[in-house]
């Protein structure tokens, strides 16, 4: 059972752009303070959304014909009466499952479904389907859902990266307590890991205000959808877990940095001390040899009185 309206609905492809000036037709596009975008309609391509700071991300809509450009999320938005017809739902679910898998997003078999005030939102992997009651709700709900999607995606990426780096970072544990000459060669790796952990923390903290944002009062249609999505994706819990996991590595690398720095500072002094030791040893060596050779010479040459008595 399929729904023709759903099939004819254009796929809107979006890409998240970080800290970049977004240009369209040679002009920088900016977002009015109330979040509305008179230039972005449900059917027009090239819409731009700015997320609230400090996320530092802008969403750029890609042209639907430019299939070579990689998108981060694909959305189909339709205005449809509530309840949404079964055919449309089935078409939506089928379309969601066709999408590419992403290790950073939920790619389990189940589709995440949210329903509120006549709006139905389906999400799976990097695809989303939004059924709203009226056309005027499309833009606000699209923006908040894209932001919530971005948050989940970022948290997923952080979780994946942490899992990938965990065993590497674990290998640095001994360096938190012992750092000597033999470990000097690992400094570059330590610096790299330390910087990676710091960047990780920075990225995690950047998401924090949006993930832990309190409920908006009075609630709006879009804010409720965002809150519901964040709850379903368990973003607050996942963020807290990442925070705790990262803390242990931050402590480790602070300790490693301290040890490496202390050793490096002491090493210069050690080298000078060894140079002085060597000079002293050489001096003692020369002095000892002078004594030894003088003993040897006197042993080789008998005293004068013995020579005279022999004569």
């Amino acid at each position: 059972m399929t729904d023709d309206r759903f099939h004819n609905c254009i796929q809107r492809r979006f890409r998240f752009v970080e800290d970049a000036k977004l240009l369209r037709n040679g002009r920088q596009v900016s977002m009015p303070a109330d979040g509305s975008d008179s230039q972005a309609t449900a059917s027009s391509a090239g819409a731009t959304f700015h997320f609230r700071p400090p996320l530092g991300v802008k969403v750029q809509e890609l042209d639907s014909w430019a299939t070579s450009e990689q998108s981060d999320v694909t959305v189909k938005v339709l205005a449809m009466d509530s309840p949404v017809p079964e055919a449309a739902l089935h078409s939506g679910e089928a379309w969601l499952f066709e999408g590419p898998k992403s290790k950073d997003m939920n790619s389990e078999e189940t589709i995440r479904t949210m329903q509120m005030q006549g709006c139905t939102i389906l999400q799976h992997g990097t695809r989303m389907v939004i059924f709203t009651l009226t056309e005027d709700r499309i833009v606000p709900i699209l923006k908040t859902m894209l932001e919530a999607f971005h948050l989940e995606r970022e948290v997923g990426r952080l979780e994946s990266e942490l899992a990938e780096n965990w065993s590497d970072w674990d290998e640095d544990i001994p360096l938190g307590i012992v750092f000597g000459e033999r470990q000097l060669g690992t400094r570059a790796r330590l610096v790299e890991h330390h910087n990676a952990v710091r960047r990780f923390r920075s990225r995690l903290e950047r998401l924090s205000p949006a993930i832990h944002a309190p409920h908006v009062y009075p609630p709006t249609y879009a804010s409720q959808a965002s809150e519901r999505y964040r709850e379903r994706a368990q973003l607050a819990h996942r963020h807290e877990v990442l925070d705790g996991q990262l803390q242990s590595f931050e402590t480790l690398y602070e300790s490693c940095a301290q040890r490496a720095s202390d050793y490096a500072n002491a090493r210069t002094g050690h080298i000078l001390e060894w140079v002085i030791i060597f000079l002293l040893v050489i001096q003692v060596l020369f002095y000892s040899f002078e004594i030894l050779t003088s003993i040897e010479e006197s042993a080789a040459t008998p005293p004068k009185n013995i020579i005279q008595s022999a004569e």
Partner: protein
Amino acid sequence: MRYLSIDVLRMVAIFVMVWVHFLENLSGVESSITGFGAPLFSFLAGVSYCLWIEQQRERLSSEAISKISIRRGLFVFGVGIAFNVLVWLPEDTFNWDVLTLIGTALLILNASRHMPDYVLLMAAGSSIFVAPMLQGLADYNSYWPENYYDGGLTLSGILIGYFVVGYFPFFPWISYALVGYVLGRRLFTQETALRIDWKPVCCIGLGLLLFAFGLHWLSSQLGGSFAASAINRQVLSGWKMYPPSVEYVIGTLGITLLMFGGLLHFIDGSKQPERWERRLSLTRSFSRYSFSIYILHHLVHIWPLWIFALLRGEEPTAYWRVAMTVPYSAGLATLFLMGLTLFLYCRGDRTPVGMERAMRWLCD
């Protein structure tokens, strides 16, 4: 883990040593390869000690490693003294041959194995440049009246011989073992993840060789002034093994590193190491028996000289260096090496017998 490059290098050193000793002791001739065997042995002593420590670190404590190292060092030193008495006769007990040097090197390396690389390299460099001055202080030539070492039996004479004027004195020969140990640590330890990086080894070797040639050229350009002649006499005395000049030590160190780096690249760093394993399996046997071969080859060509002279009622050393002409001594050396090769081929990978086994039994 055994590295074929080390085995090959040690086998080369054995061949050089046997050839040089047969020609020198039987015919009194110095061949062109004289002076290349001992640096290889000393250098490889340092590398092998480092590898041995790496192998033992996981199953033995640091204290146990030290005890075994001290026992082994004293064993080699003691065998060196006994060897001098039994092979070179009691008059040459304290001639400070290569075994006493290697025994000392083991003791020194054990004491300094926790020290940073730069300390060991500074020690090596200091020993090379201090040696000529100590030789001058000790009047080196007075201990070498007829181109062989004739040390005294007084305590001061023994000590001077041990440190400066003997056949293989502490200064500067300890530098080879120290450099070998540092290189082993850089190339073969867990921290370097067994990364075989041959290029720096070859570059340093080439640099040292060029430096030695540079010093040699410099000494020829110094002119006839008092200072220049003093430098030429004491410090830059040319390519000489007795006494070991600065150019000789640095140059042979460079050649050793070049050979080692090249073998690391072509053999241990090869994409098909098993091919080299099959072809060079005999080198492993030579390397495992190097201690025994050193003693055996002396017994084989020195004792007959003494015995023959005694039977004829002469001084035991009467035929030393004058026993035969070069073709005969060269032929005997070749025969010995062929017999040795055959023995080792038949012996295969069985547990070594001889000095190596005695050392393990007593010291480990």
